[in-house]
């Protein structure tokens, strides 16, 4: 794996986390992973990822944080 970038959106006001994520997707390289941390499930982002050739997994941690791992499909 080329590496991992992390966006911690838990203390950011919407749509800041989505803005940062979209900006990061523009420069995401093959094999690189983007880890997004949020308190909610970002359904609009999921739709964007599905429609644009990215794969993702979402896992809810014990503290309620959703950890979304994104990479190029």
């Amino acid at each position, binding site marked *: 794996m080329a590496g991992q970038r992390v966006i911690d959106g838990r203390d950011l*006001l919407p*749509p800041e986390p989505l803005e940062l994520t979209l900006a990061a997707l523009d420069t995401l390289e093959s094999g690189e992973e983007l880890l997004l941390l949020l308190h909610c499930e970002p359904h609009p982002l999921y739709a964007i990822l599905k429609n644009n050739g990215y794969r993702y997994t979402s896992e809810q941690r014990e503290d309620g944080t959703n950890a979304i791992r994104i990479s190029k499909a």
Partner: protein
Amino acid sequence: MHPNLSFEQAPPISVPYRFFLTAPWFGVTAGLLLAWLGPDALESRWSPGALALSHLLTVGFMLQVMCGALLQFIPVATGGNVWRPRWVASLVHPIVAIAALCLAFGFALSQPLLIQIAVPLFAAGLGGFIAVVSFSLLRTPAHGMTIHVLRLALFGLAVTLILGIALASALGWQADGQASWSLVLISNVHAAWGLGAWALMLVIGVSYLVVPMFQLTPSYPAWLTRTVPFGILVAIGLWSLQLGVDGELVQSWLSVVALGGMLLAGLYAGTTLWLQALRRRRLTDITFVFWRGAMLALLGFVASWIALEVFPVLGEHPRAAIWLGMLALPGVFVSVISGMLYKIVPFLNWLHLQRLGGLKVLPPNIKQMLAEKPMRRQMRLHFASLVLLLGAVLWPPLTSLAGLSFAVSFLWLEWNLVGAVRRYIDFRSRALSDQVIDQTHADASSRVS
């Protein structure tokens, strides 16, 4: 920008905006009607003016925004797909708006014909809306308490609609007062389902998501997210049994059941205020203050209801119900809805401008979609109007001033929302014309080469 990204999940922006931009006009109408009718309108909840005003706010302002918001909220927040949202909106929006006007002016002018027109319009428009939205909520792959509570709210809306149709049919076709049921009893149950099981339930379900997200608070405690909505629904369900069961035994536990429901609503309001106090960033934006005002009004409603039960001399006063109505409608629901509109509209502008893709110029920042100062001034006028409306219940000479203030507050809300939509349209036009110019230059270059 993100030229290759598709944003297909969100419905067209015209779907929610047609509801949002229509809604404040019902509030303007309500305020002007109150100013015109004066103190007589607030003499009792059964006065033609009071019935017209309450329905202009509930099936006018509130229902318009709630329908538009649900069509937007379900796909964006729950991942559910609403069947043909543009088509649904283009039918439901005018039908429900016309039905609301007919019902309100049927009450205000004591015209049964207008009420007769409203009945089939509500049955078709709102019934169709409930069917489409319920279907998408049942099929959504998402899970969590927000989804469950939204389903409960839709059930509450369906029961409210059925009871409302029964009431309006009785009033529209049996205007001589020979109705076979107790209209007062059905009206009470209709109001409980409409305000408690539909409107408050929707606010509760949406708040589980938007309060932590937009106000950066901790999440609602898991036990509370289950107990409050289901408890309120059970309380309203048991309280509604008075429609079918008669006798002193029923009367004796009605107050206990109602008290249980009220305390749950108070617990929800208190918890929301407590979570707001624990927010992780000391942001005090407009939406935050509107929510805080709404929750204080909800606590005021619960405290007033208990006081009116404890002191029957006060509770039996014809204006007691008007006092509760002022706290519930302008106090809780208009406040929370105004706060959410100021959050949703800039966000939708931003989201839909992102969809354009390939822009040379960045869309305005979300904070530039709607300036803070006019929103804050409108919010102050709204809360001042609320104080005047409550004052008018106690001191009737204030009524016309309160009505005018309320009308101007809604007019200002409309003005602010239109300003945000104009900013969206201006930027979209500029961005699209830039794209056309770029495309024309590219085509010309390729022809030359």
